[in-house]
């Protein structure tokens, strides 16, 4: 068994920042990550980091834009923390040497982004995430922070008190990808989950293949609630064949969207009369799909994004990477022709419920980055607001876990505060498919631990459980392979739980997920090797995809209104009287339990009054 003060799971922007922060506080910190840090998906971020750095801008304006963009589903204390801390954290990256794009006076450049009232998106060409990830990894090397790379974390070791709020996280169990060993990692102070996105629930996504929502699902099964899972952001400009992202920076710099008739539809059809292409992502995604659905799409599938008029010099200066992406992955040179684009899954606004300090309701368990929901994005994330989230909340979680005194959080977690139970009309049974003999495929149940069991023993028990699960999976000689199940779920989610949502389709998705769960009871791993067994790892990930797909769909079915990225055919209005609340799902004895907690709209000096969003 390995032992450290703080264990960070994941080495993207959030995980690296958390580790550096914990190290600053003097903790013995280690990172455990299924990919080598520089392979993390943060590297793919293109557009930039929002930070109110300049004269004429202020964190208050940034907070206002964020609350409005969220369609009033973000919690004000979290959004304000994000906007207040972001300038400092962004400049910290600059001090660490990050190669930002520069203005003539040598200061870092900023550009306009969708939904922002000031051009406050700081960037490094169209490769901001790559620069950020590498800069932060360099700092990790400088500090000699220990990284266990290519270790796949499979479960959390959490004590099993009845109420999640009474539980403690003592560590994790991980699988060494190179050797097939299953080992325990005990965390004396805390575990920080920073496992990133969950785009692999869909088949058309900008996310990496590794983004299977592991952290969210593991925390959920250990008792930490998932929050606002129905809010999935679809990015309006992804390449149709692969889902590769074309940054919003293209529209920020003046790129124009056209339909098949060559009409600038954002204006022509009144989708956003003021901001046009720069309206928020949900608005633009719906506009594009409406064009396609009404027969004005190209090849019934996509629209055109044109940046040729910007001129080669400006394109190469600010968007060079886009030229390569479009050429390599779609075969279109955007200096000569418009790029084909369509909406694709991009970002999960929801995730593991945390407060502004990154802490969950389970003591010693933290989450930061895309896997977490401190609730800064609410119903819709503004472009350029995720990277600051990584550095701001990554740092806070790192400090807190390492024992630094933090201000008491204003956001409550777990069922401690005010909450209301919910109900959803599901056509099928939800949750685990078979508890008992078949439980292997369900991920098993947590080791039962009385109060007398020490943290180390608890981790050891979890390790033994996991060894058994994995042995059983490897021993099975036949059954069905995960690739088949994955494909079914991904296709169903894209068909039924996409940009446009309606009740019957959501119910179809729940049926498909149920069927997939049952098939998963028969899952079998073809590869019997202990060395670099990606078949086994994908099979373990599949379990997470199932829980997450179910949570997204359940939330979407429950929320009878139209807010942010969540559009419902039957409910075409935002209904503030009833729905200014977060959708919460708790894993209760193997079944999802639905409940709600109110949104906090009171900020430090003001209350954010819900207004109609118009662009």
């Amino acid at each position: 068994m390995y032992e450290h003060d703080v264990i960070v799971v994941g080495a993207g922007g959030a995980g690296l920042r958390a580790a550096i922060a914990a190290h600053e506080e003097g903790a013995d910190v280690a990172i455990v990550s299924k990919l080598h840090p520089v392979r993390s998906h943060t590297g793919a971020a293109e557009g930039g980091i929002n930070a109110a750095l300049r004269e004429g801008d202020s964190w208050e304006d940034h907070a206002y834009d964020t609350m409005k963009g969220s369609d009033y589903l973000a919690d004000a204390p979290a959004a304000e923390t994000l906007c207040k801390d972001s300038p400092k954290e962004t400049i910290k990256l600059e001090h660490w040497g990050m190669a930002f794009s520069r203005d003539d006076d040598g200061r870092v450049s900023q550009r306009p982004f969708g939904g922002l009232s000031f051009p406050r998106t700081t960037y490094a060409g169209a490769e901001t995430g790559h620069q950020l990830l590498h800069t932060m990894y360099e700092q990790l090397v400088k500090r000699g922070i220990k990284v266990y790379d290519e270790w796949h974390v499979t479960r959390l070791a959490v004590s099993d008190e009845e109420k999640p709020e009474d539980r403690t996280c003592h560590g994790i169990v991980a699988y060494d990808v190179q050797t097939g060993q299953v080992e325990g990692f005990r965390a004396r102070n805390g575990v920080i989950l920073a496992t990133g996105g969950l785009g692999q629930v869909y088949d058309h996504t900008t996310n990496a293949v590794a983004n299977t929502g592991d952290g969210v699902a593991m925390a959920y099964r250990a008792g930490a609630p998932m929050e606002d899972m129905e809010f999935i952001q679809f990015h309006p400009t992804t390449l149709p064949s692969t889902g590769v992202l074309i940054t919003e920076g293209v529209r920020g710099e003046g790129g124009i969207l056209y339909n098949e008739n060559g009409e600038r539809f954002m204006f022509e059809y009144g989708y956003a009369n003021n901001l046009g292409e720069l309206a928020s992502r949900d608005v633009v995604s719906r506009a594009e799909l409406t064009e396609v659905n009404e027969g004005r799409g190209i090849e019934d599938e996509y629209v055109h994004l044109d940046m040729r008029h910007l001129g080669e010099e400006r394109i190469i200066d600010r968007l060079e990477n886009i030229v390569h992406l479009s050429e390599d992955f779609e075969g279109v040179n955007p200096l000569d022709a418009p790029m084909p684009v369509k909406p694709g899954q991009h970002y999960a606004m929801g995730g593991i419920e945390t407060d502004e300090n990154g802490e969950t309701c389970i003591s010693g368990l933290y989450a930061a980055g895309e896997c977490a929901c401190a609730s800064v994005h609410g119903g819709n994330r503004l472009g350029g607001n995720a990277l600051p989230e990584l550095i701001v909340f990554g740092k806070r979680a790192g400090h807190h876990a390492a024992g630094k005194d933090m201000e008491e959080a204003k956001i409550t977690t777990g069922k401690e505060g005010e909450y209301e139970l919910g109900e959803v009309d599901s056509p099928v049974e939800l949750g685990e498919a078979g508890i008992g003999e078949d439980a292997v495929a369900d991920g098993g149940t947590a080791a039962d631990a009385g109060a007398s069991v020490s943290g180390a023993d608890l981790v050891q028990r979890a390790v033994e459980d996991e060894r058994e699960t994995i042995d059983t999976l490897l021993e099975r000689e036949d059954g069905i392979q995960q690739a088949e199940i994955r494909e079914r779920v991904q296709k169903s989610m894209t068909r039924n739980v996409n940009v446009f949502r309606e009740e019957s389709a959501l119910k179809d998705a729940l049926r498909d997920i149920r069927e997939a769960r049952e098939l998963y009871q028969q899952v079998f791993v073809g590869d019997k090797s202990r060395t670099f067994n990606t078949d086994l790892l994908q099979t373990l990930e599949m379990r997470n995809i199932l829980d997450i797909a179910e949570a997204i769909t359940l939330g979407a079915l429950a929320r009878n209104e139209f807010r942010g990225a969540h559009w419902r055919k039957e409910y075409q209005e935002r209904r503030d009287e009833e729905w200014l609340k977060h959708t919460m799902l708790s894993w209760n004895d193997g079944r999802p339990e639905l409940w709600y907690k109110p949104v906090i709209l009171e900020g430090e000096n003001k209350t954010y009054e819900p207004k109609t969003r118009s662009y």
Partner: protein
Amino acid sequence: MSTQVPETVEEESATEAASAGKQKRDAKKRERAERVQEQREAEAAEKARSADDTYHLKVFRYDPEVPEKQEPRFDDFHVPYKQGMTILDALMWARDHYDSSLTFRHSCRQAICGSDALFVNGSQRLGCKTQLSDLSEPIRVEPLPHSDVVKDLVVDMEHFYDQMESVEPYFQTNSLPDGELDEQRQTRENREKVKMSTRCIWCSACMSSCNIAAGDNEYLGPAAINKAYRFAMDEREGEDMKQRRLEILEQEHGVWRCQTQFSCTEVCPKDIPLTEHIQELKREAIKNNLKFW
């Protein structure tokens, strides 16, 4: 059910019925699983047969643990072609439809994570960035040369990482501005100068293509030298640091080992002018030494 049946019997028969029910359900589940699997295999074969175009891949296979795979071999895969398909897409298709044990690293699918550098038809390329249609058949896919193979297409990256970390790959300066909101100014020209060097995704293609690195295990190699260039040329680090960086680069297994063969520059998927950077550092090193004479 008759009320006359004694309770105990009823209980028993209930459990029996339940377990019979479970067996039936299990059998049904198994049947369904088998059906789905068969259907899938048939579909895969059908797709490959009926596609107008299939591509023929010969893929290197090796697993130290599995007896049948201990002897390295090439497996043939015929993959149905779709417009825009890359080597990585083809490998994923083969894995998902033919052989789930086919092993390779991959993640981003967009040439930014650096995990899928492979040896394709005799040269180093990123699988995700290489269109099948640009290659001649049969397409040979092998792990990167000059590295230990862990399994199939996966190589051990430790040595590469060690070399990267040996050049102090992090920003160091003695003159940070005082204020936490004050930037270190950098001219646009200077950023432009280091820009290409910052693009490295640590894929190791360059290292694998380099003859010198193959023969001299201690040679820093193109990627690590490029990393040092990235900082040595950054005006924000200052002159003192530049001296120190040049000292690291001038060591016995540093820049002077490079024989200007350009193979690294040719294979780099991020178009980094590696050889040029190495040459420039050699010139800087000479200038630096002249100062001491």
